[in-house]
């Protein structure tokens, strides 16, 4: 479904992403982890055809992102970390707008279901500017689900959500993956990534440190202790990389 091959992205003289490659098949959930400035958001935005890649071949459902951006956008939903919604529209107008822009037929039933699921049904006539941060996040996710995408890209999806919202979002992500969607989640919450992701990609300073399943990850970074969490592995992977770079600098 999602195929990224040798992705590079540079801004002026800064190389934000340096040759990463990965695939996400239908039903898989890829956790994108890395320190701040590692290139996670840039990767997602490039994949969502919002910004062009400097180099590399990216495809979604067989469509190349650089050649068929609109076909790609029709098939995926990108939920940014801080969704800036249209403040003048109401909640239901936002959903109507999304249904129209993505050409979703008979969206009303699905919209009503999503509004109830995300506890926004009593806010449907409220303007977006009156919503709290968490509610805006819920609305952005509802809009993303409304289009029934084949691929979902989440950038820090749990920001601002209440505990109930977090549990529900995690469940819906798993449900979407079971129904055949390819999902990428960028997050600093390693426990959540470990909990629901089938694959993990560790990024650091734009470079790909590791990409594989959780068992493969544990094998790649063995540790003396019996219990090895993703958090342990993450620090091991990033510390090793820093040490290697320092060694290289010494040489």
């Amino acid at each position: 479904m999602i195929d990224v091959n040798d992705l590079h992205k540079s801004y002026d003289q800064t190389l934000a992403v340096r040759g990463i490659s990965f695939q996400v098949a239908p039903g898989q959930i890829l956790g994108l982890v890395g320190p701040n400035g590692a290139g996670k958001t840039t990767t997602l935005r490039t994949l969502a055809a919002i910004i062009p890649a400097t180099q590399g071949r990216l495809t979604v459902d067989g469509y190349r992102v650089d050649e068929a951006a609109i076909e790609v956008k029709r098939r995926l939903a990108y939920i940014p970390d801080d969704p800036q919604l249209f403040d003048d529209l109401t909640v239901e107008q936002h959903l109507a707008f999304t249904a129209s822009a993505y050409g979703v037929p008979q969206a009303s039933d699905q919209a009503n279901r999503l509004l109830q699921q995300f506890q926004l049904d009593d806010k449907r006539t409220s303007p977006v500017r009156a919503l709290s941060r968490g509610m805006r996040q819920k609305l952005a996710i509802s809009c993303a689900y409304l289009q029934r995408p084949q691929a979902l890209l989440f950038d820090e999806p749990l920001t601002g959500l209440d505990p109930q919202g977090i549990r529900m979002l995690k469940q819906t992500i798993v449900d979407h993956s079971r129904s055949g969607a390819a999902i990428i989640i960028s997050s600093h919450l390693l426990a959540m990534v470990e909990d629901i992701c089938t694959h993990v990609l560790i990024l650091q300073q734009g470079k790909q440190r590791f990409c594989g399943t959780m068992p493969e990850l544990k094998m790649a970074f063995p540790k003396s202790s019996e219990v090895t969490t993703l958090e342990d592995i993450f620090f091991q992977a990033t510390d090793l990389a820093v040490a290697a770079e320092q060694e290289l600098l010494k040489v």
Partner: protein
Amino acid sequence: MSSLTSSKPVSLLHPALLELLRYQGRARLLRLVSGFGTPQRFVLSCVGLFLAAIWLGNVAVSVLMREATEPVRFLNLVSLGFTTYALWHVVRNAVWRPEAGIHWTKTEQEFLGGAPFSRRELIGYRFTSMLTAASMKAVLISLLMLPDIHIWPAALVGTILAMLMLDLIRMTVELVFHGVSNRTYAWIRGCVLTLAGGCLAGSLISMLCTPGIFAPRSTPIAVTLLAQLFHSAVDLRNTLPGLIVEAPFRPFVSIVTTHSLASYVWVWLAVGTGMVTMMAWLVLRLDQIFRTRLLQVERQVWSETRALDPELIEPEINDRPLVAIPRWGGIYTVAWRQWITAKNYWASLLVALAPLAILSVLPLAENGDPVKCFINVVGGLVFFAFIMMPSVFKLDFRRDLDHMLLLKMLPLRSSSVVIGQLAVPVVLATVFQIAVLSGVALVRPISPLVLACTCGILLPFNVLVFALDNLIFVLYPYRAQQEGLEVFIRAILILTGKGLLFAAALVFVLLWSSAAQWIGAEITGANGPIPWQGIFAAGLFAFYVTTASVTTWLLANAFGRFDPGQDVPA
């Protein structure tokens, strides 16, 4: 902003807030220097500075070289200027109720509101920012008045105090209009609007009934009407209500227009400073009173709501269908969203359009040929459309800086998004122009064909105007609340660029009219089937359609390349 319960005596300005103001000043300076950061910005900044020097030099020369205004007239101008501005605050807040007693930015709310500052200190911080802004404005105003004033330091101090007074009056009005109950506000609104409407109608009637006002003369009718309006205002100033309304500014007007530093000036200075201090105290007191009142109202509403049985409250939940929005390749979808925004601000749009409509139809006041009158109205409309209309209808990319990511995410072609974004402002501007022209055609009958042709040409013209403004914005995005040299340079660049384009378009129209006459005579003969006016209109239409299409295409390309992560300014 919190801190309602601060009982201990506190200073008016916390040292940390003073430090913050200092840092903000320094940051502005740094931002000013960073305007020269990249080669592209450096070149643009240099061009902007050069143009600014020419513009400002021109203004400076015209200020210094002009003759001094007659003392009584100058006094009237200063007094009426301050009073009108203060009254405008009252009328504005009567039309649009303020959303808060004191407006705080999001950063102030989240950062300062959460810090251990008392309410008094926060308002003191606001007063200090006002003083800084007022001082800068006062320097500029006093320099503009240089030929008319006698003692510049006195004029500067008087203007600073007057500007502070204006800000304090605005704060007082906003506090009261926000804090009173809905019923009281409705009553105040009714009174203010009735009074304002009465004064305006009275002035207009007296102006229009002046004998010989429409007699042919060398000065333009607009200037004559404005002069008459000024005379009416001066007459009003000399009445008892006028003297009462003007009273808060009397000391400052006396200081600004003084001829010598006589003892009475010092008395006025003491009185003026005392009045400003009193107003500052009043603002602090009103803020406390209305915050307490609003909290009481909130508690009362809560206790009443609590008494209600939740089972009896009708749930708002319903499963009604979503509104079906036609797609049209996404163009209608994007335009629909802008239309919703336009509907939310229809009153503001009407208020902003009213002066443009009045200024456009002024040629009607002149007796003369209907065709000449129609051309003058069209000329006015075109000029306003080019210079002012894009600021009125900001229902496009210029309002969507924070939504660029969302727009880029949509599965739509860049061209569809651009056309959808431009549709609403273009249609609204065209409808406004057609309404004005139709009104003019009713008063001074004109051929329906000429009217239809003009309206047809205005549509691509408006597309060109809005596409151009949006293209500049997408290439060099900025935030509306940005300030400093960069904004000034941008304004100068845009104004000059637009002025040059307007002049070029004017030259083209003149040349094309001659060419159309020649083509008409050469090809179809003097009495041929196609009159030269038809050729002229068709050529003009083709020109605007072509340039509008090219500009829209350039805008679509610029939007396609726009990177929300990099190009959106902080």
